[in-house]
């Protein structure tokens, strides 16, 4: 790091991201905005929640995405995150499409999940992505749809389109990856889970596989442009389904509780985490309700515990 600073390269970190610079361009270097009250022309390219991602779920795009995920994306994730994947055995009884609901720290979460979720879900996975962020321009929308299989989710206004699209995908046999927090963590702590994933699970009758991600904030936290190699862990929970009469809000709270328990399990051990879960003493994902510095302080050392795996001895003949 000091060498980077000595050479004066650290100022590059402070530069806005290419996407931000692209968005900062003005007409005529980018398309004109449409005045309010003027009906758009019939040939207007649709972006945001109106962007049509159906092409990205056809076979040519799926094949290209599979090649990207298994090739450069996997290599990049291994190099940047050295991921430790736990709890995959909990998915062994999962059959058919499911909704993977994870906490969200970083842009690297999606590549990490796409390279960690096992077959058969991995290659038939649609990722819920913020319509206002990933689908703001036609270029970013196309890249998002192609590379990660994204589909737009409205998070700034209430609308049926996103929910109908997601439900249609599940009915077509697609699994969904959704971040119920609605965005990346700004400070390392999580947000309260929203009800989207829970609502879809109830509506479509599919289970939710809770997932906890730890450590990706150190690799590329919100607000940074260049990734810093570190280690991340990803823990899959046992799929859960909404109970009879359980509302989406209550089910969302249950999903959040399971993810919080998975976080506890990652930081301590499974049995201790189960003890706290049964005693309703699992630390919340959202952290203490205190001032900013105390929240940061309370994060403590979240560095990854040393791996306890080792090769069996003797190695056999």
């Amino acid at each position: 790091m000091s060498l980077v600073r000595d050479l004066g390269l650290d100022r590059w970190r402070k530069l806005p991201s290419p996407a931000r610079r692209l968005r900062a361009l003005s007409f005529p270097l980018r398309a004109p905005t449409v005045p309010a009250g003027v009906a758009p022309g019939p040939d207007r390219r649709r972006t945001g929640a109106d962007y049509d991602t159906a092409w990205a779920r056809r076979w040519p795009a799926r094949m290209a995405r599979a090649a990207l995920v298994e090739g450069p994306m996997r290599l990049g994730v291994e190099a940047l995150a050295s991921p430790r994947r736990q709890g995959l055995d909990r998915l062994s009884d999962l059959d058919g499409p499911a909704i993977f609901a994870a906490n969200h720290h970083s842009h690297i979460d999606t590549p990490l999940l796409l390279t960690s979720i096992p077959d058969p879900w991995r290659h038939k996975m649609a990722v819920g992505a913020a319509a206002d962020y990933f689908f703001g321009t036609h270029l970013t929308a196309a890249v998002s749809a192609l590379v990660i299989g994204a589909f737009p989710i409205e998070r700034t206004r209430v609308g049926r389109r996103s929910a109908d699209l997601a439900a249609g995908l599940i009915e077509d046999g697609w699994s969904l990856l959704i971040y119920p927090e609605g965005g990346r963590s700004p400070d390392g702590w999580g947000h309260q889970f929203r009800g989207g994933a829970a609502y879809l699970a109830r509506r479509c009758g599919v289970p939710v596989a809770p997932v906890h991600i730890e450590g990706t904030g150190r690799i590329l936290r919100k607000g940074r442009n260049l990734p810093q190699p570190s280690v991340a862990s990803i823990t899959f929970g046992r799929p859960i389904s909404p109970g009879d009469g359980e509302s989406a809000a209550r089910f969302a709270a249950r999903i959040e509780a399971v993810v919080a328990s998975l976080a506890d399990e990652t930081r301590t051990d499974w049995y201790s985490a189960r003890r706290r879960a049964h005693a309703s003493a699992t630390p919340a994902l959202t952290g203490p309700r205190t001032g900013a510095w105390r929240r940061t302080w309370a994060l403590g050392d979240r560095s990854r515990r040393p791996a306890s795996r080792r090769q069996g001895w003797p190695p056999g003949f």
Partner: protein
Amino acid sequence: MASDRRPRPPRPGLVLDVDRSTPPVLFHHGEGFRLHRLPPGRSRVIYPAEPLPGLADPDGAITEALLNPIGEDPLPSLLRPGMKLTIAFDDLSLPLPPMRRPDVRQRVIEQVLDMAAAAGVDDVHLIAALALHRRMTDDELRHALGDRVFDAFSPIGALYNHDAEDPDQMVELGRTDQDELVTMNRRAAESDLLVYVNINLVAMDGGWKSTATGLADYRALRHHHNVATMVNSRSFMDRHRSELHHSNWRQGAVIRRHGPRVFQIETTVNNNTFGRTGPLAALQKREWEWSARDRASFVAMQAGLKAMPAAARRRAFGSWLAPYELTSVQAGEVEAVHERTTDNVLAQHLVPVEGQTDVLTMGLPYICPYNVNSVMNPILVMCLGLGYFFNLYRGRPLVREGGVVIMSHPTAWEFHPVHHPSYIDFFEQVLASTTDPAEIEAKYEEQFATDEWYIHLYRTSHAYHGVHPFYMWYWGAHALQWLGRVIVVGGEPRAVRRLGFQPASTLDDALEMAADVVGPSPTVTHLHNPPIVMADVT
């Protein structure tokens, strides 16, 4: 209880009469396979039943068993804060081959621990009930119990292997009415509750054998792991006609009176050893049903195996994890649970067979209970063939008294020096002087069982106990007494002769040699095993 995943119900086992149209029959041959034509008109093949459907919701079935046990209170009601809880479990000798994750033990133990966590139990120990087997490595424990249990309990020393030679760790519980000593791991014996988690792969497993053998030491095991017991067990796969089990049940009565409260959890898995699809799927199909893909896979596999060095072949086979599915789980009082477990095991394995045969043929696979991640040495070849396969009967042996067993296996003169040190000396010294089990027991057992070096290796390394090769030999004592001759096809002649058997190059040669004992044109029965098949001989 049943899953609806399969389109048609599994077919039961089959006894096929061989005629000229019968295709060559598969023989396992160590880390390889052979296809042999059996003499038409006088041969038959016993095929195992197809895999029973796995439980649709295995975790739900486990929960149900723990909450509604047989002859016991629900598990949660037995758990309380401040209690001493010990969970013992079967070691790496089960199942065979090791199963894909999640292992049945992991599924069950996670639920037991979850209930213990809900009850606020702090003092929990997990013990691999391995008796005199080798200690499991960390990776093997992790595979059996899963990452979560291993990471929670191993670092704090609460997950470990049973040590039958630690004088401070063993206690005497008493003696049976036939003066058999009963010993038990001290931690288990002094617990408020002992939960035993078992996998019943064959009918021999489970019941009081789990605790009376798995957590005992040599002083207790010698009462049933001996020649007399084995010879009087007809067979040890039939609990009601097994002297081995009668002795264990007597010891179990002592445990019930003077030991801890035992909550037994027994599970059964199906015959899905090689997968319904995949590269080894043909091995659990009947030969005439092999598809073009099966045949191509088999040919490619044979060619690949032939080109591989022995070590690579062993690694390739050792890496196979069976896709077993849970078919039943029952929990509660030991004997009541075991009765139901045995019924479920037999529902998968038992095939009715009429009449005995002059010659019994068997292809021995690459694995037995005692060479997981290790080498199948000649003593284990004998134990697998004459101990396990020969005894896979109910009623009477498949082969008539004075008949011949023909086993197919490479039988290399090779041992794993870390896992089987006493086997080497047993093979080099003891079998060089005699192969008679009774004489071996009388002259050599005590010496090997109390050898300080073997005890040291058992306790600190990953070695089987010094007395273990004797038990392997006793396991075949019933067959040795019953048979007129044992022939090994494709075995290393020097090693085969050391075992007291006769080597043969081909099955045809072996059948000719057998005719010298049982007469010309003998009847032949082939045990198409694995997947496991048990003959119900009438």
